Structures are given as structure tokens and as C-alpha cells.
């Protein structure tokens, strides 16, 4: 698989504070990555370093197998950091034309990208007259101008109203479905869960986990069960080697699996033992639960 970004042992110190500590990860083409972490965990600093605006203290990073210089590589990257920054006195077309010049790409895509984010009608308005949502969409249009190999988004829905959040998410999903690699930094877990296939979890600048979302915890999920004979059910499950912790909450048993088992075979097994279930659901932990477990453990 083609490597887009390789970060190894990256460290950034601001005086006494270590914002990023010995961070390593790799971004492969075609995946959608989420960088997760509470506020102040070093997400934006990490992105700042790989985007050439923050100086690293030590460590290395290389774009596209290190064959080009960072600023050349950035021409093939689309990135939005925190707040959209454009020239307030210029309109959308003028601003995007400037970006085209910087990225050394023809100006032919301006209309297409402005239409994609729904700003073509406002193309002649000055940037300073835009609402925050429009500014953010304008930033996305700008980041897409060069049809980037990777799109980097830092808190893209921060400060937006629900409608704006929805619009941005729809745009991100559309881009992801076209096969563009995406690196999305956020502290909003459901946002990451909805679009990302891989996650990198940071806490206080340290890498807690990086890999596919599914194998974040060595977990096989859990069953939610209800039956008329709850005590009997609980005893049976406790005897079974397949289950670990079993919780009884408001008449619903939650049984955590220690090994893979599908709902059908559990139902069959319990039925054979004379227990009829009134409720059976197999679930995986949500990203939020996994994230909290992971950050708590360390």
C-alpha cells in the first residue's frame, strides 16, 4: 500500500510544556483517519508540524516517501487548520485564484469546487461578509482545488450550528466516498466514528493507539439479553467460558464476550437449555466507550 505520510518519533516542546511526545504513525492511501484526543492533547500541534507552520523539536516526518520537499508535497495536500484564513477584502474567486497560484494549478477548477460546497452564488461577495459556516465551506473548496491526495481537516465543525455541522459532514462523506485519503482531527467522537476507518488517539501528546477502529480494543462486543427467568439466565452465562463480566441493569443483562460468538448460536444454546429470550441484541462498544476505556487505562 502507498504511504502518504510517515511520522516517526516526533516531539515538540513549548518551553517546559511537551505538546507532542515521541509520536509515530503512518498514513496509507485510501483510508480515512481520525486523530482523537481531548483539548490540548497535541492534535493541532501535530498537524501544524506536518504542515510546515510549527517547527519540530526533534523527530522526523516525510511526505510521499520523502521524495519531495515539504512545501512541494503540500501542494498535493489540502488542509484546513482551526479557523478558515483568507484575505477578508477579496471575494471567493479572487481568494481561490491566489490559492491556485500558490499551488501552481490552473484556475479551471474554481467553479466546480465552489459549486460542490454551495458557494457559487456568493462567489462575488467579499470573504469578510461570509458567515462562519460559509467561511468553513470556502476553506474546504480551497483545500480541494488541486484534487489533493490527502485532505487534512482540523476541527472542521467547530463553532458551527447544527445545520452547518450537517453540511460539512455531508461534504466530508462525499469526498471520502470518492476515495480521497482524509485525516480528520476532532474531539467529537461520533464525528470520527461516522467517517473514519482508522484512528490515532492522543493524550497529552502521547500516542495511546493507532490502527483500525475495529481492533482498537481487543473486544468481541457484548449481548443485551432479557428473559422471564433472569436469575437462571445469569447463572447459565456465568458458567459459560465464552463470557466475562455480566451486569444486571434494570432487568437487562449485559454479557461481555471473551471470544467470538454470533447471536444465533447463543439463542440456540439458551433455547436448548430451556430459556426463552424476550430481547437479544449483539453490539460493539461505541467509539466513545472505547475511547474512555483506553484513556482511563493509561
Amino acid at each position, binding site marked *: 500500500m502507498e504511504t502518504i505520510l510517515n511520522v516517526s518519533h516526533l516531539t515538540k516542546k513549548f518551553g517546559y510544556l511537551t505538546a507532542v511526545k515521541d509520536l509515530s504513525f503512518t498514513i496509507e492511501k485510501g483510508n480515512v483517519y481520525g486523530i482523537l484526543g481531548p483539548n490540548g492533547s497535541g492534535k493541532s500541534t501535530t498537524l501544524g508540524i506536518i504542515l*510546515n507552520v510549527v517547527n519540530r523539536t526533534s523527530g522526523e516526518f516525510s511526505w510521499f516517501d520523502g521524495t519531495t*520537499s515539504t512545501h512541494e508535497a503540500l501542494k498535493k495536500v489540502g488542509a484546513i487548520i482551526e479557523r478558515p484564513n483568507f484575505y477578508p477584502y477579496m471575494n471567493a474567486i479572487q481568494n481561490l485564484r491566489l490559492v491556485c497560484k500558490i499551488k501552481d494549478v490552473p484556475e479551471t477548477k474554481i467553479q466546480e469546487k465552489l459549486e460542490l460546497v454551495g458557494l457559487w452564488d456568493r462567489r462575488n461577495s467579499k470573504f469578510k461578509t461570509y458567515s462562519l459556516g460559509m467561511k468553513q465551506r470556502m476553506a474546504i473548496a480551497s483545500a480541494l482545488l488541486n484534487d489533493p491526495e490527502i485532505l487534512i481537516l482540523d476541527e472542521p465543525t467547530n463553532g458551527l450550528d447544527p445545520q452547518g455541522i450537517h453540511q460539512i459532514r455531508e461534504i466530508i462523506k462525499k469526498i471520502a466516498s470518492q476515495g480521497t485519503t482524509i485525516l480528520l482531527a476532532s474531539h467529537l467522537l461520533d464525528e470520527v466514528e461516522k467517517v473514519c476507518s482508522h484512528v490515532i488517539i492522543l493524550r497529552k501528546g502521547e500516542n495511546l493507539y493507532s490502527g483500525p477502529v475495529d481492533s482498537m480494543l481487543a473486544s468481541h462486543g457484548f449481548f443485551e439479553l432479557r428473559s422471564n427467568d433472569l436469575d437462571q439466565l445469569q447463572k447459565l452465562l456465568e458458567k459459560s467460558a465464552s463470557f466475562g463480566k455480566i451486569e444486571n441493569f434494570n432487568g437487562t443483562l449485559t454479557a461481555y464476550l471473551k471470544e467470538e460468538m454470533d447471536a444465533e448460536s447463543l439463542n440456540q444454546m439458551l433455547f436448548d437449555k430451556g430459556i426463552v429470550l424476550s430481547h437479544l441484541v449483539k453490539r460493539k462498544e461505541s467509539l466513545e466507550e472505547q475511547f474512555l476505556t483506553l484513556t482511563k487505562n493509561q
Partner: protein
Amino acid sequence: MLRLLQIEFIKLWNNRASKVLIISYFVLLTSIALIAAIKFDIGPVQFHLADQGIFNFPYIWHFNTYVTALFKLFLAIVIVSMMSNEYSNKTIKQNLIDGLSKKEFILSKVLTVISFALISTIFVFVGSLILGLVYSDYNEMSIIFSDLEFLPAFFFKLVAFFSFCLFLGMLVKRSAFALGFLILWTILEQVVFGLLGWKVMSWEAAKMVKRFFPLESMANLIKEPATRLSAVQNIGQQIGEDMRFDYHVYWYEFLIVIVWTAIFIYLSYAILKKRDL
């Protein structure tokens, strides 16, 4: 190189304040000569400035470069704000993320500064040439094209001054403060000169040292031309003062100014390189 200039042109030309200032600067640059030629011809006192020999070749090169250099303050405002606005709009960050290297960023500003200086020099050259051909008492080729060193002096003076403005914009990040700093610096050079002469060394030595100060060295390139006028020199002779002084431009004066230019540009780059945006 053309790409970097185009980038800067888009930024400047779409900003109404910059556009107005740039246009007024060049309008002033051309009209100064014309106004001087027409006016001063009023009332019973027949004082026609053009008759006083200010438009004589080669003196006109000296006079016009000296006077027009005073307008550089217009462009100074444009240049300081074109640098500091990048910080206040945070567009410098976006430029770098979009794939401009820090070197290219500085280079685009420096190229703009050089273009400004070059266009100004051409304006002054053409303007003075026309004015001189109309009013000058001497029209021989050899005289017209003597003392031309004032033109490169003008060019380097502007480049150095604008580089200083760039550096201040980069250092201070706020245009109003940067311009304030520029004024403060002007005063500071005089204060340091005063202190040196008064306490540290002889006035002669202090004057030597003063030549190495950045703004002073730029001013030194084109010295004030008034005392070169025959009218003024006549008065000087009558009151028994020898006013002949050395107005020529020397190579070491060029050198000092070029070294300062290099220092300012390098420092701007060093600051940008070191800063976390």
C-alpha cells in the same frame, strides 16, 4: 519568480487601501516635477524655480532623486501593512499550508519591494529627463548623462528602506506599531549619535560612526542638494561661509546600504523560520 510576483500582486491590488496609496505615490512621483516647473511664478517677485538652475543637467538627477525619495513613506505604509496584514489575517499560515515555502514567502515580498524601487527609479529617470530637456541650460549628451550615480543610489536607498519596513512588519506584526517603531528608530539614531558625540568620543568620530546606522546610511546616499545651487552658494560666499561640500556617492556608501538590506532580509527570513505560527 513571476509566480511569486503575481501572488503578491493579487494580494496588493485587491486591497483598496493599498491600491489608493500605490496610485497616489506614482501620481505624486510624476506630478512633483510638473508642479515645481509651473509654480513660483506669481506676483511682482519673478521667482521661477526652473530658472534657478534646479532643472539643469546634471544637477537635476541629484535634486529630483532627493525630493522624490521623500514620498517613499507612502509605499512604506503599503509595505509594512502588506507584511503585518498577513499576520493579522493569519493568511501567512494559510499560504504556508497551501504550499508556499517560507523562503518563497519572503522572496515574494522582496521581489515586490525591488519592483517598487525599480519602477520608481524608472519614473524618476524618465520624468527628470523630460524636465531637464525642457528646462536645462545645458543640453550636451555628455552633461545630460553625467552624475547618473544618483539613480542607482535612489534605487538602493528605496530597496534598503523598504526592506527595513518589511523587517519591521515581520518583527512587530502590527502595521501601526511597526510604523511607530520606524519613527522611534529615526529618533533613536539621532539620540545615539548625540550620546556618542557628547560622552563617548569626539564629534568627528561620532559622525563617522553615524554613517553606519541604517537610516542614516540611506540618507547619506543622496545628500541634500540645496547647498549645491549656485544661488545658495553665492549667499554662502557673501556671508563668508564655505558651503562647498562633498555630495558625491561613494562605493562604500553603497556597500553599507546593501549590507543593511541583506541583514534586514535575512533577519526577516530568520524570524519567520524560527516562529511557530
